[in-house]
């Protein structure tokens, strides 16, 4: 597998402004936000509630339109992503999985490939089965319906669907939210191995400090409508800001920091 060129950032966000209009009042989420994501990174985006983390992901996916500024994903404007074949450029794991409830597990995973229209059914099925097992599920689960799956399994199937066309960029919205500690740990381990084996670039929005410290090579903190700091977990923790103090040095933060590996992993 060829790796992407190291020089060009995979995602480039320049002077992004996003705003929503509710009941006649404008609510600004981002103002002059800049962010660059290099290939091979595992970037976590953190911030208080309402700081626009999910909106930022949706901007990268082209689901929201910037008020001003530019979002470029792999050299193309993000708005061009929702064209056919988008699954081969970006994979997205939605917070609640967003599986198609009318399809079985295997049909869900195979859906983007089948929609291409030319590949034969047996090849598509084989590819989907490989992805199913890559995310740690047994082939016997293939014919289950999403309604019969547990929360952890839904996330895994959704991950398999996001990865079915091997996109270089994977976006995760709260991957461990709503999972028990067991499934959350297992999902973290899976994400780390996929990140390593497939050479993925991963962008993750999370509240979960454990998965944040365990996975990320870089952390970007959203506050005051922009990225106030980005760097390795240790660098970010050293930054003086009320939110960072509250977030990382609270009781939960202290517990998670204790688990932080000594030398911070580098890309």
């Amino acid at each position, binding site marked *: *597998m060829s790796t992407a060129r190291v020089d060009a950032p995979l995602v480039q966000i320049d002077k992004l402004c996003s705003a929503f209009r509710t009941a006649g009042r404008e609510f600004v989420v981002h103002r002059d936000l800049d962010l660059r994501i290099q290939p091979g990174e595992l970037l976590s985006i953190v911030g208080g509630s309402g700081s626009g983390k999910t909106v930022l992901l949706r901007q990268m996916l082209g689901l929201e339109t910037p008020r001003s500024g530019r979002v470029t994903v*792999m050299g193309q404007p993000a708005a061009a992503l929702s064209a056919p074949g988008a699954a081969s450029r970006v994979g997205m794991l939605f917070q609640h999985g967003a599986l198609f409830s009318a399809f079985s597990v295997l049909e869900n995973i195979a859906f983007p490939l089948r929609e291409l229209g*030319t590949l034969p059914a047996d090849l598509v099925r084989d590819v989907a089965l490989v992805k199913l097992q890559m995310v740690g599920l047994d082939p016997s689960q293939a014919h289950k319906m999403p*309604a019969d799956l547990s929360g952890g399994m839904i996330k895994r199937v959704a991950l398999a669907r996001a990865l079915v*066309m091997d996109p270089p960029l994977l976006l995760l919205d709260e991957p461990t939210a709503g999972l028990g500690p067991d499934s959350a740990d297992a999902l973290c381990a899976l994400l780390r191995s996929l990140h390593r084996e497939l050479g993925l670039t991963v962008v993750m929005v999370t509240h979960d400090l454990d998965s944040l410290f365990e996975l990320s090579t870089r952390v970007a903190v959203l506050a005051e409508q922009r990225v106030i700091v980005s760097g390795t977990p240790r660098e970010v923790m050293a930054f003086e800001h009320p939110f960072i103090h509250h977030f990382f040095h609270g009781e939960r933060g202290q517990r998670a920091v204790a688990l932080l590996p000594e030398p911070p992993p580098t890309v």
Partner: protein
Amino acid sequence: MQNTPPRLSRQILSQGECAQLLGHWTAALLAQPAVWAGLQRELLALRTAQLGWDLRQIERLDHTGAQLLWNSWGRQWPAQLQVLPAQRTMLERVARYTVVPPAPVPRTLRAAYLSLGELMLRLLGHAMGGLRLVGQLLLDTGRLLRHPHQGPWRDFSGHLYHIGATALPITALVGFLIGVVLAYLIAQQLRLFGADPFIVNILGISLIRELGPVLAAILIAGRSGSTITAQIGVMRVTEELDAMRVLGIARGFRLVLPRVLAMAMAMPLLTVWTTLAAMLGGMLASDLVMGITPSYFVSALPGAVKASNLTLAVAKSVVFGIAIALIGCHYGLRVKPNTESLGQGTTASVVTSITVVILVDALFAVVFKDVGI
């Protein structure tokens, strides 16, 4: 980003003939119809030939490409293979995970027999659910009568507006057009017998007694019955129903009762409104086709149609309204938390409520056959 499509070239090397793969072997590029047709033919031709494979020139290989190669090798490693380490790990992963797909559970005679039983149980479940809903409604009505100030009156007025007021234009339009069409058709027949003035009797009885209530009920079943099912169904999908239960709020009292009350009140009003629009249409058409003036029409109407017909129509439409609301709630509460079930529930709700409206109408026709005619 220039992506070269996947290509295959045969080359004679020192160790024998060798298939060299070039370009991007990725799902998106493989799936281009022109590329795929040619490539499939070439791979099929190579399947029998014993030759070596060189993957090192591939610019990008993804799992779909790897799976394609693995399948075309007959799911075993070729004798001569030259690959990069990353490609080998990917092929190994594909090889490890390529399994015989589990067969979907086959349908046996026993399964068919059991599904028949399931069908019967489901019908029984519908009957039980319906009975429980009606019983709960009676209890809730009793509670409302005892404590009227606790009633869900805000919900009631909201539903009344959405079911009643916003349906006025469409019911008027449909009623008016039906009136015009009926008057034209009847006029043709009556003229054969020279019985022109009787159009007042025919239009009066048919529109006031039958068509007005049924027409309004069918429109409202399609319009508001489906809304009720979808609203309650989405509340199931988003767990709002469970939340209400946990908060100790009776869903019969807060969800079903206001809808049934609003429907029972809106339906007779809409029936009168639809009937009026239909009469207007019939009156205009009679004037145009047969020269029966509106003043004659209006003065002859009370003699032709007894007032008891109007009472019957209004009473009937109250029953229609209650039935539509109850059926909508019944199917809404049975929705399972997935999109497919929501769609099925809404369809079933509309079909059932229209059928029930017509059934109830037939029942009224039989029971009150001596009234008003």
